[in-house]
Structures are given as C-alpha cells and as structure tokens.
C-alpha cells in the first residue's frame, strides 16, 4: 500500500476554499469517529487514536493547511466531548506536530514503510506521554496494558487511514 507522495516540499497553492478546509475537516471527523459508541466489548478503552493519524498525515503533506490553532481547537473539542481533562489531547497533538514538522522532509518523498515507521515512533511517544500525564493527574499508576494495546491498534490501522486520506487528498487537491 505504497502511498504516492502528494504535496511535496513546496505546497501547491489552492484556490478552492473547500479543499483548503479539508485537513481541518478530516481531522474533526477523526475526532468524531474516536468518540463513536461501537457495540464491541472493550472497544471504548482501546479506540485507536484516529485524530493522531490525521494530524500526522496532514503535518507531513500539507502542514500549512493544519495550523497549530486548528490543532488546539480540535484537541480541546475532543477533550471536552470525551469527558477528559481539557488540554490533554490539545497538548499531545501540538507536541506531535512539533515533532513531525522537524523531520517531515524525510517522509515526504519516501515509500510508505518509512512513513509508517515514523508514525509508529510518533504513536509510541504520544501514548507514553498520555499515560504519564494521566498517571500524574489521577495520582495513581494507571494500568499500562491498555495503553500498549491502544498503541498497537493505532499503528495497525494507520495504513488504511493513510490510504483513505491520501485518496481524499489526491481527489480534492490533485497530485504534487
């Protein structure tokens, strides 16, 4: 499932306002999917971090269309809707952006396994960060197994999400 690099280092200028809003819209959609009640036992605790997938994809290919302010607002909305302490997801997404944007040039023109490996590292770091933060906030050692399963599930599902986002990107914005 090699994803063709779209939107190289110099981002293509888009005049279509709908296409410009696509990264924010898909990231918001990922947030909504994250809190959907699914009739699967144990799913709620292991829900993959869909928002992180969208943020990783767009930060690599079109960081100009997913600015920090939009990440902050999406993160705060997710926290408020999910009943989590406000700021936790926002902080995680902003730090993820900061980490990805430093080395995005290494991923832009690379085959998909490189992109996936980058996401694996990012997810590992993000999950560890969330676990540490919740341990500090709740004042207890939260069971680490749930975090590990969630990370594995997130990494496993990423190729599908990346393929779909790539298709959407190509359709709406064109290649290159």
């Amino acid at each position, binding site marked *: 499932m090699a994803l063709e690099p779209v939107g190289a280092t110099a981002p293509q200028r888009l005049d279509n306002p709908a296409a410009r809003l696509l990264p924010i819209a898909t990231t918001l959609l990922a947030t909504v999917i994250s809190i959907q009640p699914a009739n699967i036992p144990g799913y709620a605790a292991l829900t993959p971090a869909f928002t992180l997938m969208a943020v990783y994809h767009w930060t690599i290919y079109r960081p100009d269309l997913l600015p920090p302010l939009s990440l902050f607002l999406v993160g705060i*909305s997710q926290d408020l809707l*999910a009943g989590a302490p406000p700021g936790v997801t926002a902080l995680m997404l902003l730090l993820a952006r900061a980490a990805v944007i430093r080395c995005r040039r290494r991923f832009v023109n690379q085959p998909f396994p490189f992109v996936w490996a980058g996401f694996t590292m990012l997810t590992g770091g993000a999950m560890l960060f969330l*676990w540490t933060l919740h341990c500090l906030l709740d004042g*207890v050692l939260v069971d680490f197994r749930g975090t590990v399963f969630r990370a594995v599930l997130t990494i496993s599902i990423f190729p599908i999400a990346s393929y779909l986002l790539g298709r959407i990107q190509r359709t709406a914005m064109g290649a290159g």
Partner: protein
Amino acid sequence: MARACEVIGLSPPRRAAVQRVSLPLLVFVSATMIVLGKADQILFESLRASVTDTAAPALDVLSRPVAALGHLVDRARDFVAVYQDNARLAEENERLLSWQQAALGLASENARLRELLKLTPEPPATFITARVIANSGGAYVRSLMVYAGHENGVVRGQAAMTGEGLVGRVSEVGSRAARVLLVTDLNSRVPVIVEGPQQRALLAGDNSERPNLRYLDAGTGIKIGDRVVTSGQGGVFPPGLPVGIVASVDGEAPRVEPYVEMSRVEYLRIVDYGLANGLPNPVPVASRSGRRADASTGDQPGRR
C-alpha cells in the same frame, strides 16, 4: 494560522513571526488549561456543557449508522443461533413462570404487611430514556454521553441504569445532553452492600471492566457469585439497585462483574428517585480537606 494572517493583512515577515510563536504559545495555553482544570474542577464545566450541547445533535445523527451496523451484525448472529436460543428461552420461561407466582405471592403479602404497619409509601421513581451518542474513546476515562439534558429533566446525580442494573450516575448536565460517569471509571465511588454476608463496602472503579470492593472487614466470607447492590449510604442512590456479582476474591480486593456490559449500552434509563438534589457541586481540590472521595463521604463527584 496562515489564513488568519492573510485575512487580517499581516506582512510576510510578521506572518512568519506569528507562526513561529503560535505553537509554543498554544502548548503553554494547553498545559495551563490542564493545571487549571485539575485545580478547579468546575472552571471548564460551562464550556464543556456548551460544547457538548452544540455537538449533541450532530453526534446523535452520526452515531445512528454505527448503531444500525451493530444491529445488523446482532441480527445475523441471532439468525444463526435461533434454534438454541429458542430452546434456552423456553426452558427459562418455564423457570420464570414459577418465579412469577412466587413474586405475586410476595407482593401481596408485602402489601398487607405495609398496610398493617401503616408504612408511608416511597415516592414513585420517574424515568427518562436517553440514547447514548458518544463514549469517552480512550484508556483513561469511562463515561457516556446521552442525548437528554436539563430540558428533559435530567439532573446531576441521578442514577443511570439499564433493565439489567446500574451503569453509573449523571456527572454533568447540559441543556440537551448529559454525561454519565460509569461505575468502572477511576473516579467512581458507589457505596454498596454485598448480599449474603450483608457486608457494606465501597465499589471503586479503576478503569478496568471490573471495579473492586474497598473498605471490607477482614474475613467477611465474601464468595464468588454474591450479589452486589447499592447500599443507599451517602444519599445519592436509593438502596437495592442491582450493580453486579462478585467475580473474584483473590488479590488485594474482591472484584465485581457489573450486570451491564458497558460497551453494549445503547439506551439508558436516567432514574429520578427524588434524591439527586442532595448531590453537592464538585469542590475545588485545593479547598478539600481530604484528597479523594473516601468511605465516609460515600459517592462524591470526581474530577469530571
């Protein structure tokens, strides 16, 4: 941010400066929000309620296709198991008919005894049925969002149940939607009684599927399979609501398997027993004398 800069007409160097500053600034704002939210639990409550109210209609619509897909899977599963189900239900029906006779006898005897004692009847409970439109999606919070709020008569502290048993309690209420903190959440504390040994305890969630029983006396003789019901201590829930059964007695604390499978809840009954008014608002951590809800205070609201 780039678009915002274009809109307000910033020059390119200034635009670059704004973009450079925005990320660290927003990281700082997020971190500050986490600290403030932890220090003062009611600070973001109105913001949370208004965001929830705004998103509730959209979440209601979006959750329907997922629910429909779930029904389709259930229906296919039912179709495959129809013969075994029928045999099981016929046998169960026979058993329940004898229980019905016993219940009718007990109800009439109970009514006669109440009349003899001139017992004041308890006020009847009122129900609000609400659809679950979102869950907490993550490893650290166990809550559900339901599509009913102030407008429908939902009040903080009311019990949320299904026909099988207790699910949790209403922890936040907006005008159209409300949040239910599940009994499995890390911050949930429900005073319960273990039937059999008649032992009082505190059912404490730890984000796992099975909450544990705390503050039990040593050597109380609790067995696997003992029923656990609310004790009514603390005045939030009435006594006798079914919660679950004791599932394990090894390790530090016995664990309880709730009657309700939380991930399969689609509709909830929010039950008003006329007790909810007694539930106080959350108190900022800084002004609390103790750190967490403890046994003496019973069911206290957590951080959410």
